[in-house]
């Protein structure tokens, strides 16, 4: 990209209504070259709509979108060749093999890719002759990413690329996304996995009910909005005493462990003593610094309360 060239994606005050429903409400962000930007939010928060409007599939109610300085709604085929897209529900042509699916998209884009190299880079060489319908979920997503990359785009949109994918394949997909950044491509990623955003993104935007409620590098968002340390207790047997059960921000994580927000790290031993006094047993505890997950939960709770 020439010096002074516009950023791959600029979104200003984007609003999108579906009838009376407000799906996106005043969203603004910029994705510079070679960076991974992550839209983080619950299901139905407005991530996919934001992506579809920025890609030009849907018309914004208000606001402005610029893809490489152009309006995606009116730009032609040349602009479409500069971006690659993996939609959330993309599964490819079920009757075609992996290789045939990739060839199809290469032809659509008028590209002549080095298919063996692309297949190799996504660990798909062994599956290249397999019909798409016979692939595992993780392999299907990798094929989806391959179809988004087959024409060598500068900007890649990945809508929940790891949703429903097992942990091993998730990590493989993370490596692929990190490699895209290393190659100098810009990536716009949506996810509701906090660890994914923390691991991959240069910048995250937490979107809730169509509005961005926090934005910045993951570390900063975590630091600014994550609150204090958290006591994590696993294998809890029995009910928490009333004084703890009513504590604001108390919740469970994905593994079923109980997370109790602390005012400071020294409060941990005090709470553990209280549990012991109440006769509540547990298997293990840790005190850890706030995560992006904590920041997300606090931000959503604060927004809801407001």
């Amino acid at each position, binding site marked *: 990209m020439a010096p002074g060239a516009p950023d791959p994606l600029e979104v200003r005050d984007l609003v999108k209504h579906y009838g009376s429903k407000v799906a996106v409400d005043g969203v603004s962000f910029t994705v510079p070259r070679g960076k991974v930007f992550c839209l983080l939010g619950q299901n139905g928060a407005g991530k996919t709509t934001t992506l*579809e409007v920025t890609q*030009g599939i849907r018309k914004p109610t208000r606001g402005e979108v610029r893809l490489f300085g152009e309006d995606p709604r009116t730009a032609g085929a040349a602009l*479409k060749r500069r971006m690659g897209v993996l939609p959330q529900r*993309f599964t490819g042509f079920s009757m075609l093999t992996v290789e*045939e699916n990739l060839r*199809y*998209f290469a*032809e659509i884009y008028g590209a002549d890719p080095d298919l063996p190299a692309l297949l190799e880079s996504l660990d798909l060489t062994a599956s290249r002759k397999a019909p798409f319908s016979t692939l595992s979920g993780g392999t299907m997503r990798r094929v989806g990413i391959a179809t988004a990359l087959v024409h060598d785009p500068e900007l890649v949109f990945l809508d929940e690329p790891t949703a429903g994918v097992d942990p091993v394949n998730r990590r493989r997909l993370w490596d692929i996304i990190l490699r895209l950044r290393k190659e100098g491509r810009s990536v716009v990623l949506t996810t509701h996995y906090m660890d994914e955003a923390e691991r991959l993104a240069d910048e995250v935007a937490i979107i809730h009910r169509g509005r961005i409620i926090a934005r910045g590098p993951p570390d900063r968002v975590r630091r600014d909005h994550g609150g204090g340390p958290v006591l994590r207790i696993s294998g809890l047997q029995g009910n928490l005493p009333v004084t703890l059960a009513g504590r604001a921000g108390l919740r469970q994580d994905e593994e079923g462990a109980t997370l109790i927000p602390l005012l400071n790290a020294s409060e941990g031993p005090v709470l553990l003593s209280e549990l012991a006094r109440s006769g509540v047993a547990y298997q293990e505890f840790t005190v850890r610094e706030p995560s992006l997950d904590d920041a997300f939960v606090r931000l959503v709770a604060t927004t809801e309360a407001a």
Partner: protein
Amino acid sequence: MNLRGTLADGATLLRTWSRAKGTLVVSLAMPLLMLVAFGYLFSPDEPERPLLLVEDRAGTNESARLLQLLEAEPSLLITRGAPPEGADPSAWLREQGATGLLRILPANNASGAPVLETLVDPTVPVHASAVRTAVDAARLRHAGGETVAVTELPARDPAPYSAFLLAGVLGLSAMLAGLSMGYHSISELRHAGLLERLAVSPLSKREWLIARMAATSLIGLVTGIVIYGVALIFFPAPPTGGPIALLLVMGGTLVFSGLGTLLGLAVKDPQTGSAVMNLTLLPMVVLSGAFFDVARLPMVLQWAAALSPLTHLNNGLRADLLLGDASTALLHAGALLLASLVIILVGGRLIRWTQE
């Protein structure tokens, strides 16, 4: 024009069709089953050699010589006979089980050559054609290459059962293959997120529509060739026509695949889709003349029938396969191509990849 993309999209549809067993059954096996069952197993017998009845009203040496030549023709059975006074010649001809009636009339000019008047029953088109050819050949041999006046009476009888069946099966399969390929494949594309993916690709909606319609019409051609081939093998009386009928089948599939595609894109919910499909098909079927003569309907409905692609598909196929009327059949093929063009032009603008 994104030619590579358009060709790739069409090729993908063809590949998918060839690998989807269910679609193959619908588009090939069912029409063939109908054709074999109703055309071969239950078809009425047709005579092996056409019977030509000859009425010699001239009674001259010239007419006797002509009769000799005709009797030497191995492809015909010749018998003398004439319809009773006042009888309908066509009805009488059918009662006798004959294909044609040749009247040799006295010469009415200086050349002295007899005037030939033939009445050919087109209900057995191949036999009718054989009679025409044989009479023509005998006449030319007799006249030493001189032209002899021939009057052919207009045919009034219905065409044979097998020709009706073939025209019907070809029309039905073109319509169903086009509609189902167009409509149902959209469900897969939508379910697989491929419509959203295509929305951000350089392939335009119009190019995509052209690719789908062209590929489906090729499928229609393949299906038509197979059905026609089976009719050729199994029917006691091989079908007439052919190339124009196949062109009509292609045109019909082209139009109906376009309509099916637009319908599939417009209606997301399968239940509503089936209802809308019926709502689209039923008036076309009723107005196509399958159930009653459209000429008896009010003028408004006759105009509506003239706008329906199914009317042109059916009428074109009948014109070619039943009457051997190539020019009328081509006119209907032209109407189908025009309708396809309108669908491409208008549909390309109306298509929305995703629904709000």
